[in-house]
């Protein structure tokens, strides 16, 4: 049996009414594939994985896969995930969000989750647009681009998600694209295996909403753009900032170690119990 058939058989939900909700050619499906391959490589049991999502096209990923799955409210996925992980730290909790989901309505939750360093994995599908609601501009829509709520072109500056994650204190931050599939698999795998808050930003394409409004061509054209504009972290180090304008820096931006929330909380429990016994004694 070819590898892909095995993965499909093992991880997709066969009692779910397919077809899926995504437009043909959407990058979200590629990300689902990468996620499954990465999880398979970690060797984690399906029972021990919780896949949590917010609301958006990307938010529909969990329904198709055979894990413990939770489709939350717009922007709040990380808050639910926080509760799950703290209630049962044996579970491997992976959170999938869109750019609007994670950075606009959920921006506050995102920076605080990164700061707290709970052992979670956050995957952000950055398609530069609100896909599900029909192509409105998002916090990652670049200046000068068009959206259904920016028909006269976008006048806001964009957030750089990975850089935001680094600043907020995430211990692992990687950026990939749907074009660079192998890199994406390994970034997701590393983020899952990383102890602490790991972030993977995936540059994806929404050719139907964003692409059409900005005349960026087909899904294939948009993926070619990813190929042609990506530079690795190593290459970027040797480039001047003008040269990096409009480029996507891919690879691992941060991989460091900080105390994990759950480990610290175990110490809190010990201190709390010491207090208790000294009061009683």
């Amino acid at each position, binding site marked *: 049996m070819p590898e892909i058939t095995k993965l499909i058989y093992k991880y997709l939900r066969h009692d779910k009414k397919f077809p899926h909700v995504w437009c043909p050619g959407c990058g979200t499906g590629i990300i689902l594939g990468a996620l499954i391959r990465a999880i398979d490589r970690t060797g984690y049991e399906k029972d021990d994985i919780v896949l949590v999502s917010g609301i958006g096209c990307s938010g529909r990923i969990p329904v198709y896969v055979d894990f413990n799955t939770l489709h939350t*409210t717009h922007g709040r996925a990380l*808050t639910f995930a926080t*509760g799950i992980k*703290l209630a049962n730290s044996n579970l491997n909790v992976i959170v999938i969000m869109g750019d609007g989901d994670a950075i606009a309505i959920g921006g506050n939750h995102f920076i605080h989750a990164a700061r707290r360093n709970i052992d979670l994995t956050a995957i952000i599908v950055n398609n530069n647009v609100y896909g599900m609601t029909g192509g409105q501009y998002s916090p990652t829509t670049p200046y000068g681009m068009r959206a259904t709520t920016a028909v006269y072109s976008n006048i806001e500056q964009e957030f750089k998600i990975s850089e935001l994650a680094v600043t907020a204190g995430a211990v692992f931050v990687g950026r990939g694209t749907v074009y660079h599939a192998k890199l994406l698999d390994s970034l997701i795998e590393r983020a899952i295996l990383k102890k602490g808050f790991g972030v993977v930003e995936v540059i994806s394409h929404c050719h139907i909403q964003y692409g059409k409004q900005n005349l960026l061509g087909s899904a294939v054209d948009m993926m070619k753009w990813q190929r042609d504009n990506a530079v690795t972290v190593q290459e970027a180090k040797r480039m001047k900032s003008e040269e990096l304008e409009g480029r996507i820096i891919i690879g691992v931006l941060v991989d460091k170690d900080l105390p994990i929330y759950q480990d610290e909380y175990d110490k809190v429990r010990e201190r709390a119990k010491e207090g208790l016994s000294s009061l009683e004694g």
Partner: protein
Amino acid sequence: MKKRRPREFLMQGNEAVVEGALVAGCRFFAGYPITPATEIAEIMSVKLPQVDGTFIQMEDEIASMGAIIGASLAGTKSMTATSGPGFSLVQENLGFACMAEVPCVVGDVMRLGPSTGIPTYPSQGDVMQARWGTHGDHPAIVLAPSTVRECFDLSVKAFNLSEKYRTPVILLFDEVVGHMREKITLPRPEEVEVIDRIRPTVPPEWYIPYEDTTQGVSPMAIFGDGYRFHVTGLAHDIRGFPTLRSDEIGPFMDRIHRKITLGFPEIQMGEFFQLEDADIAIIAYGSVARSARRAVIDAREKGVKVGLLRLITLWPFMRTAVERVIQKAKMLIVPEMNMGQISREVKRVNEGKAKVNTINRVDGLTITPQQILKRIREVS
């Protein structure tokens, strides 16, 4: 031998809520500080780690509500507590808990609103928000303690009902009840009835997470149990997957309401005080019910036949209890620290049969026994 802990305490309402929650098995609290509910978070942060539970201070109340739902899905009884401004923020995810049928408890210690209002002044202004604050038609269980001991008891009850009916339960009390200190005797933990959600016993392949049952409540697996099911705030079919089919959405909505209706005898709690021969009935709850009780006792001494229906459960509204009261009493007095929220509901049930008087106060002061007594005199 270790001395048995004395069970008599001088305690605040907020503290009693925590004690009740811990006895009921609450092991996760997520919250954001807000007067007059902050003590609940503070005491939880001290006590939960002592019993291997978890306290976390989130970035806001939206996050707190999300976190307690997550913890509950992972099998840990959980709660948050807040006040007006934060109660507005929990509404979005409160609706999620109704839709996905996730047990959890939300405390709202009511302060004067709207907006920031007066953080330190009591109010009963959130009665309707507790019922209808989240969008869409949804069931609601809202309990309103009026003594410190009752804060303990209803905290336990809130968890029990939420577990049994798989629905969020709101503990709604005013600042007076939250901050008031009373000497109370608490039962030993082993004397308290604690109800846990029913978990599936069938093999995972057979598990249908949102299947209808005679009581309308399906067994609830928890994440990590081996059942690998899907939870969503979208309308879903009995397997938990999103559906657009009206013939699946309708029965689902019907079931989440029916499960509460079937539970009325247990959920709806009230106290009937001197109502047998009462011509005048007061309907009150929370701290105002304390003033009302005093007024009843004083008025009875003067020979006025007055009684009190104290609502312990605010929602689902105790229609049958009110109907019983108005069979005899043709004069009702509904005192509330709001512009008239429960009195509207009373009027709906009354349908003009008795005369409904309201006493409303929204200036930050409590309604006194004298104020109620004065009204009794006026109408008797």
